[in-house]
């Protein structure tokens, strides 16, 4: 009788001789020629409530005033344009020569309306040149403007030790040169700076191979491939993975690089509402039932594009539900972990580890080395077949230069710190410090009464400011107090949601965070941006009746 699996058949049931142990201790096995570690812990780390809480909304009068702000700004913009046209006011922007006034205009006036009349007024909050390493502190070059932000001039002075709340320096690895970076200079001396060749020609160095193997080990996947530029990783590899006849379902708030890659691929793109798994499921069902648009044929493949942490919202993708959906409908998942690699998960392995899922659940891991690893470049990781395909078909591998060797060495150094090789636990300390900082900062901001977005563990903390003038005032005031933040307004965000975006780093000590919190607290009172309802600030205070409540007493007559 046939005896599959080595068990004896007895009364119709198969008894296997080998007892299968559920809790196997680091059983390594070989698959596809790659040595794989078994997943140690299959259970999720904690009972995760997905980040689908509805964000607190500001009261309506705030929104009304925001629209008023934009409206009045627009009216004044029209007035100023009128005055500029009729020569009452000097025009600082580019204009055409007198002789060419009748030609078809080279500079379209109205498309620059917003830039000219609204952005120019508050332009000094952006593009500020810094002149030191962007660690926890940085030095800012002082610049002043004599003509209301049309031109700037550097006074030559440097504002020293500005607290850095804007860099994506999550693990604090972006520091000045010190002795531990000696291997990087040795690589620089040996290999030089640039690799004047693409991966397919003469540009694959042993440093790249070393980094790719290390990256695969770090992420607990079969293989990885690295690229010289993070943006290009997305925009050159998504076209290699999908093409005409495929369907891309991408999150509303995906980064430009993902959108560009999706558009270049020629597939049909359908965006789904941000982090909304019901919407995604509805779209999946509709797509599978109806097929391709005109022909009704089945899709060649369906790819879901998400990010680990979204940089404008600070929200974390709802990965467990997403993976369940993808398995049910047999779609592929591409996850861009630009912000979440190194900053989430107990070992810094990203969103997948944060939720405790199996490494095979996500089909394509993508990430960048710009944020947590303090270098530049990107990677694609996953199964060996996938990465082998990418090695041959990626546009970047054919056409663009490969990663610079000292940069690769810096990433190798960062990963080794994170993985805790050489026995020291510097990496684990950094990750833990980051988690503590995040928790502390978020909690304090909520207590103070600011409306903030983002999941509770995400290192990106957008504080909502709503009105365009407050957005600019926030940035300027904090700079006076020597704190640097990034602020964003329309059109990068929806019309009424101007925000300031704090990025917490593990190199921030508690004193630094306290300084920032104190300044933000005072500024919040001054600008009146503490819109969080009293109930949400301190949920415990409102849940039980205080027993000092005198109205509950009864007076006896």
């Amino acid at each position, binding site marked *: 009788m046939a005896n599959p699996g080595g068990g004896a058949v007895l009364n119709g049931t198969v008894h296997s001789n080998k007892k299968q142990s559920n809790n196997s201790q680091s059983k390594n096995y070989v698959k596809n020629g790659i040595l794989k570690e078994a997943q140690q812990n299959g259970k999720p780390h904690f009972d995760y409530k997905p980040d689908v809480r509805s964000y607190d909304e500001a009261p309506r009068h705030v929104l009304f005033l925001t*629209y008023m702000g934009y409206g009045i700004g627009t009216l004044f913009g029209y007035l100023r344009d009128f005055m500029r046209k009729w020569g009452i006011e000097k025009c600082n922007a580019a204009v055409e020569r007198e002789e060419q006034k009748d030609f078809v205009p080279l500079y379209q006036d*109205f498309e620059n309306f917003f830039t000219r009349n609204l952005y120019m007024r508050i332009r000094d909050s952006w593009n500020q040149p810094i002149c030191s390493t962007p660690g926890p502190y940085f030095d800012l070059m002082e610049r002043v403007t004599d003509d209301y932000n049309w031109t700037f001039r550097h006074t030559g002075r440097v504002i020293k030790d500005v607290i850095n709340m804007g860099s994506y320096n999550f693990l604090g690895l972006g520091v000045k040169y010190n002795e531990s970076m000696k291997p990087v200079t040795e690589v620089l001396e040996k290999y030089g700076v640039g690799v004047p060749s693409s991966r397919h020609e003469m540009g694959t160095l042993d440093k790249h191979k070393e980094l790719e193997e290390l990256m695969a080990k770090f992420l607990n996947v079969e293989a990885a491939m690295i690229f010289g530029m993070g943006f290009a990783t997305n925009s050159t590899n998504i076209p290699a993975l999908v093409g005409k006849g495929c369907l891309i379902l991408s999150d*509303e708030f995906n980064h430009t690089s993902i959108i560009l890659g999706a558009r270049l691929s020629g597939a049909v793109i359908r965006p789904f509402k941000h982090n909304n798994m019901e919407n995604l499921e509805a779209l999946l069902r509709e797509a599978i039932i109806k097929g391709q648009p005109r022909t009704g044929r089945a899709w060649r493949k369906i790819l879901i594009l998400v990010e680990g942490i979204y940089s404008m919202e600070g929200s974390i993708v709802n990965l467990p539900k997403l993976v369940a959906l993808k398995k049910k409908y047999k779609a592929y998942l591409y996850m861009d972990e630009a912000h979440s690699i190194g900053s989430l998960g107990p070992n810094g392995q990203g969103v997948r580890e944060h939720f405790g899922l199996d490494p095979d659940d996500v089909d394509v891991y993508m990430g960048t080395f710009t944020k947590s690893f303090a270098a530049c470049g990107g990677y694609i990781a996953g199964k060996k077949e996938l990465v082998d395909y990418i090695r041959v078909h990626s546009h970047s591998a054919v056409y663009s230069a490969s990663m610079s060797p000292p940069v690769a060495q810096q990433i190798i150094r960062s990963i080794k710190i994170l993985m805790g090789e050489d026995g020291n636990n510097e990496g684990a300390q950094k990750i833990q410090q980051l988690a503590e900082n995040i928790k502390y900062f978020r909690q304090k901001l909520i207590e103070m009464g600011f409306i903030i977005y983002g999941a509770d563990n995400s290192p990106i903390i957008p504080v909502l400011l709503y009105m365009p003038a407050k957005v600019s005032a926030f940035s300027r005031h904090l700079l006076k107090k020597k704190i640097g933040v990034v602020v964003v307004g*329309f*059109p990068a965000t929806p019309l009424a949601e101007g925000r300031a975006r704090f990025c917490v780093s593990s190199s921030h000590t508690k004193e630094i965070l306290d300084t920032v919190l104190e300044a933000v607290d005072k500024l919040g009172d001054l600008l009146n941006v503490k819109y969080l309802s009293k109930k949400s600030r301190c949920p415990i205070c409102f849940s039980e009746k205080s027993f000092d409540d005198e109205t509950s007493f009864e007076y006896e007559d």
Partner: protein
Amino acid sequence: MNVEVAHSELNPNTRVMNSRGIWLAYAILVGLLHMVLLSIPFFFSIPVVWTLTNVIHNLYKAQAMYIFLHTVKRTPFETSVQGKAWLFIHWEQMDYGLQFTSSRKFLSISPIVLYLLASFYTKYDAARFLINTASLLSILLPKLPQFHGVHLFGINKY
């Protein structure tokens, strides 16, 4: 403000009218306009004031908002589609040209409501009725879906 611009919202102009609270802001603005007119002592009678509100609202629509919605083309900022909305006025850009969305319905209904109120308060006398009707028609016709992209006499085509 161009920090990390471009998510999948290709033309943010299309979503402006759908923002939370903007209908309320619009209604409050009209109310304010009416208050301002009411407080000018030169015009005593209420009917005149209501006609004026209606007319100025439509004219304000016909000049300012008409201009804002129905004349001014393009977008006041650079979009990532590089000029797809080049020749479209704001009304046509709303919701990417999808007709009968809630914002469009709201903006179509508000002049009708004002017209009804103005007719009531002016007690339907002839002259004011003509003025009100004319201004209502001038603001309602461009909103019809049949007029999407139509340029009468070639005005404002490019």
